[in-house]
């Protein structure tokens, strides 16, 4: 790229202490530039979800500073609604709205939040459904879809808000193995299209192929980060080495 890309997420020494005293994050720092795909890996309970959820204010941090797309999240006055219009999220359990059809799932926020007309939202939704290969399912309810299809709808729902960045929290962990591929395929295409993405995943193949940077977390800390080749090829950190031995 000719000019340096804008920084979308800037987290400095952030800490998250849960009300029950558990320290989910300690002094984690990370910055994500526009267009980057950052993959976060680490053992269970290492704070990956917690980190991701601080980026859209689902978890309020208890220390440090975090600025996302110009919104200063560590200040009390942070406008979380405005922020969340710019930050999409895809969940492990899909969390589609079960009482709404696929199309309604995609149109709800654009109509209610962005104040698009029903026709505009409808058109945008259909374009996105075509993109994730599910245009023919527009009238189905989530329960009538397979897990992989539901997750693709969930990705389209996040895209419908035209966010600056999308956060993925283990998007394929709840899927049957034969459906993992179709979801990863959609995510790969998003990366190719230049979408900024933060992805928590156990799919090391995806990390290797798509990530610009891979981040390793353990015990609430970011222990190391590197480009995929170095991360997987020549892991420097000892705990990362033992983690990779287990998962690869």
């Amino acid at each position, binding site marked *: 790229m000719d000019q340096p890309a804008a920084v979308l997420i800037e987290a400095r020494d952030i800490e998250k202490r849960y009300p029950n005293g558990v320290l989910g994050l300690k002094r984690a720092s990370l910055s994500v530039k526009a267009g980057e795909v950052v993959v976060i890996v680490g053992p269970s309970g290492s704070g990956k979800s917690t980190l991701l959820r601080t980026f*859209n204010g*689902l978890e309020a941090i208890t220390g440090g500073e975090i600025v996302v797309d110009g919104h200063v999240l560590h200040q009390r006055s942070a406008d*979380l*609604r*405005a922020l*969340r*219009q710019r*930050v*999409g*999220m895809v*969940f492990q*359990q899909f*969390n*589609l*709205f*079960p*009482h709404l059809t696929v199309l309604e799932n995609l149109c*709800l*926020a654009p109509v*209610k*939040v*962005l104040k698009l007309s029903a026709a505009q939202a409808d058109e945008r939704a259909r374009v996105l459904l075509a993109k994730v290969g599910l245009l023919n399912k527009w009238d189905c*309810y989530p*329960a009538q879809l397979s897990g992989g299809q539901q997750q693709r709808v*969930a990705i389209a*729902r*996040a895209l*419908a*808000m035209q966010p600056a960045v999308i956060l993925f929290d283990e998007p394929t962990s709840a899927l049957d193995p034969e459906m993992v591929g179709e979801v990863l395929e959609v995510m790969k295409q998003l990366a190719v299209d230049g979408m900024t993405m933060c992805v928590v995943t156990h799919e090391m193949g995806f990390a290797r192929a798509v990530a610009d940077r891979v981040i390793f977390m353990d015990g609430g800390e970011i222990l190391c980060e590197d480009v995929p080749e170095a991360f997987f090829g020549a892991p420097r950190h000892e705990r990362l080495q033992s983690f990779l031995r287990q998962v690869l």
Partner: protein
Amino acid sequence: MSPSLSRWLWHAVAAALLVTIGSGLYLASKRIDYTWRWERIPQYLISTEGDDQKAPFDGFVAVSEDGRALSMTALRGAETAEFTGFSRIVAGNGDLVFEGDVIAKTDAISAGPLLVGLWLTLKISALSLVFALLLGLIVGLGRVSKNPAARDLAAFYVEVIRGTPLLVQIFIVYFFIGTVLQLSAFAAGVVALAVFTAAYVAEIVRAGIEAVPKGQTEAAQSVGLSGFQTMRYVILPQATRRILPPLAGQSINLIKDSSLVSVMALTDLTKAGREVVSSTFSPFEVWFVVALMYLLLTGVLSVAVRRLERRYAVQG
């Protein structure tokens, strides 16, 4: 034996047991020297008692040739009067009648005291239900609110209302609040029933909302919906399906609880029953009929709700 046949057999057993119990009660009632007078009941449901045409002064009655008109001439003085539009003539041609005597009757079918009471019960229940649903929704939302003050107030309300008997609440509303605010007995009844039922509705609403997975709220907020929009478009529609069945039960309770308003000067179905008993001396028949009329109301309601439930149960 086929499963369906054995099922019918068990239904038959249940029916036989009910018939046995019923005839047992009937035989028992024979032994206590009670004369059943069912024939007295219908007139208290539907009254054919119409208006009486009374003589306005002392005088003589004259019936017209076709029997459709009556005229009277006064005993003293020159007053005369004409009457038409009645159904039956009671006085005879040339009779001397005195002021206030019935000279003709107009047949008219009108609701008897029991039906009038049923109507009041229906009105007070329906009105209370509307207010109870509104108030219960507000209090229920207060129970799950992020604001501690709202949570405290809602919890306080629910505890106070559920911890005191409805009858006592009715007395308080009627004698205290009703006097201060000059409420009619009907308004006091509606207020008491609505306030009481709302506490239970609030708990039902709270449970329904809490049963919706947390991921739904997170997903709704992640696409930028406000707290209100999340409630309105995502949580409440899903909670409704869970809320409906217990809400139906609570509405049925409301209809039954409404019988307590008869302690105020309100002639609801129960009060009407009491009045009819005191004029017929047939308590058994009257109370059976009253019970049946309550059953009718609650039965219609539960059928209606089951319809609604089926409509909401379409999606998983």
